[in-house]
């Protein structure tokens, strides 16, 4: 692929998308919650910038609005809410190291290769900048899921979930030059509501079982096992 053949705007979009992918890796490996929230805010800023640049390239006013909404939500509002949540839950100093960091990052790299391979057929009918951005956004989605799988902290899972949303937004912007504004507004609102719900939920969970470790939330099936154990004793 000849990057020099692309327009400057396209090259800028590619650079920004690549940085978003890097931020997804950072999100996967960052064990300190506050730092992870900052990484997430940076990722949101990068995605918003991609939207704004694409808007500049296509001259579509809707994309500017999308970029503005994304910036406000994902760079300012949601990180601020997460910050507040962390402070209220007194988790500032808690770290949540990965069990197998090297293995996890290798799996992330494999996912990126896989995403590139999956996106390869798109190249036949799109120009190459879009193709790369689609591959990257798919990788961000899958890395977000991987984050949710490997992180035990419930707040880190929220970050993974939001990263998935970032990846989807990036794909939408890159491939179709933005979703219709109504859809965009709806999705943004959904994410906001999800964030509020998560916040309420976590406060309740913390209140009732005094932990946000996801692995401790399997008490229901554990109680079934206890029943079986007593049944076997009988």
């Amino acid at each position, binding site marked *: 692929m000849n990057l020099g053949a692309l327009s400057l705007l396209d090259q800028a979009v590619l650079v920004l998308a690549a940085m978003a992918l890097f931020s997804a890796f950072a999100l996967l490996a960052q064990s300190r919650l506050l730092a992870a929230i900052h990484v997430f805010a940076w990722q949101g800023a990068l995605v918003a910038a991609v939207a704004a640049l694409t808007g500049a390239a296509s001259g579509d006013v809707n994309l500017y609005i999308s970029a503005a909404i994304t910036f406000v939500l994902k760079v300012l509002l949601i990180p601020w809410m997460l910050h507040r949540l962390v402070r209220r839950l007194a988790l500032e100093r808690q770290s949540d190291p990965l069990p197998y960091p090297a293995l996890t990052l290798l799996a992330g790299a494999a996912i990126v290769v*896989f995403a590139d391979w999956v996106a390869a057929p798109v190249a036949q009918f799109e120009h190459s900048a879009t193709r790369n951005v689609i591959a990257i956004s798919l990788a961000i989605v899958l890395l977000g*899921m991987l984050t*949710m*799988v*490997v992180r035990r902290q419930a707040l880190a899972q929220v970050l993974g979930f939001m990263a998935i949303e970032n990846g989807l937004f990036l794909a939408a912007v890159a491939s179709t030059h933005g979703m219709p504004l109504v859809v965009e507004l709806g999705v943004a609102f959904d994410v906001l509501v999800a964030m509020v719900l998560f916040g309420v939920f976590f406060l309740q969970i913390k209140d009732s079982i005094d932990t946000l470790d996801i692995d401790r*939330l*399997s008490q229901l*099936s*554990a109680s079934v096992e206890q029943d079986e154990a007593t049944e076997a004793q009988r």
Partner: protein
Amino acid sequence: MNPAALSLPLAEAAVLAALASAAAGLVAARWPRALSWLAFPLLGLAGACALAAGIDALWCGAAQTATLPLGLPWLPWQIAVDPLSGVFLLILGAVLLPVAVYGPGYAREFRNGRDSLAHLGVFTGLFVAGMLGVLLAADAFLFMVAWELMSLASYFLVCFQHEHADNRRAAFLYLLLAHVAGLLILLSFGVLAAAGGGFSFAAMRAAHPDALWAAIAFALALAGFGAKAGLAPLHVWLPEAHPAAPSHISALLSAVMLKVALYGFLRVVFDLIGAPQWGFGVTLVIVGAASAVLGVLLALQQSDLKRLLAYSSIENMGIIFLALGLAQIFQAAGHPTLAALALLAALYQALNHALLKGLLFLGAGAVLHGAHVRSLDRLGGLLRRMPRTGWMFLIGCLGMAAVPPLNGFVSEWLTFQAALQAWQLHDSLLRILVPLAAAALALTAALAATVFVRAFGVGFLGRARSRSARHAHEVSGGMLAGQALLVVGIAVAALLPGSVLGLLARAAVQLTGHAPAASGWLWLTPLDPASASYAPLPILAVLLVVGALGVTLLRPHRGAPVRRADPWDCGFAPPTPQMQYSAAGFAQPQRRVFAPAYALHEEAGVDRYELTASDRTWGRLYRPLGALTDRAADLARRAQAGHVRRYLAWSLITLLVLLWIVS
């Protein structure tokens, strides 16, 4: 009014009476007397209506259909009464009526117990209504609804005395197999409905699925209805469930519900699938012969009276399916008259088994009621304490042992007559297989005679083996009347086989298009007088004359001095009841000969000897199957650990695999 139009209204009245009986059962929660004075009489009414409907349907020989304003909007329920369902309505009525007479006396025992009378009343009514619904249904949808009603209601009846863990286990096993059977039957109807383009039996009958789909429908129906009818190796629920239920319910389960399963099988295989195939017949003959031999061998080793009767039911269902297999073979080979004969033998065997097993289960209930034990090792000498029950039990035993002039002999004799015509077949394999099946049938008949000699001899003759047997008392008039009604039915079926067969022949005509040679009321001539004839009344007359002569000649003259003295006892101590033949000892020779058929477990101590001869299918089939299921469940549970992250990992992996597939 035209008598031909009566059978359907009568059958509908029977269903309504059964439902009313269920409603009356609810009242029994407040007023226990409602069970005896309302619920059971309504059941009796249902039985009488079903009996009349069955006789009318057979008498007229034409089918009547109707559409009910119930069911799904595009699939209204259709009902029909034709000679085939008439046979089974007759069986249901003939057993239900005596059970309703017997029931109040038997249920009085529960009035002071912990068991809920409302439970008994409601589910008995629903059970009967379900069985009637199965017989009346003319579309697969109503059939399955009624079938499941029957299965579920009978589950609640089996777990009636649920405070015993054994009963709960039996009921669970029953429920499990009933569900598997229901699923298989549903699939079988699915195959037929796909071929016929509709759920009504008329549409299925009109369509002719190709041989492969017909074979699939047949296999599903055989497994589904066979599990319910107690064919080996799906019979395991039967010897558990029948003893667990109250005795009059056991009588209904064994005498009627197994026949309803038989009806379903006949309806699907002989009526709906259409074209007969010799492969079906061979399968039926093999499965039937295996069930008959296995059932009778296990019946021989049981010491629990009701379990013994339950295993004997397996044997009888085996004989019936063997006869059905013969019918299928002859039909496929182009001998419709012989097919009609075999089918008739099967139907007659079904009727006889219903009457006899109903009587024997009611008798076992009377023994349980009078002596409070049902293990043969604790009974003995009951003929003196309970003479009326004892004599009626003897009649049932003679009938099950197929001794002429009783009815059990007639149907087995007819089955043999059909099997002995195997020389008319062209296929050499079949000409070998059918006589082999007949030999298995002969073995079964001989062993069945041993089973019932043992049951009667150990239970009713000799001396009491326990305190409770010594203090047994005769049961109340209602319970005796119920058994006596069945004895009347047995007498009709035994002494007038020509007339009964004349009625049943309508069903054979419906299914095979032919009837065996006409026979008069006195002489029964299934094929032609040159091959075989049978007349029970002269046999009975001869037996009576010989018996009367013997009694007169051997009885001491009146006035002759009677000397009373101790018999010579060889110088040993006077015999105790423990020195009699025990139930286990009586069956010891057969246990030695047929040892490979049993899973024997013997334990001998200084003053005790315990023996259990149980079913090998448990160890060979069900335990491995259960272990396999457990292992599969363990694997599934490892994935279903309840860890959020693990579920997330599964969704990620699924996503990756799907992406890999689409790209």
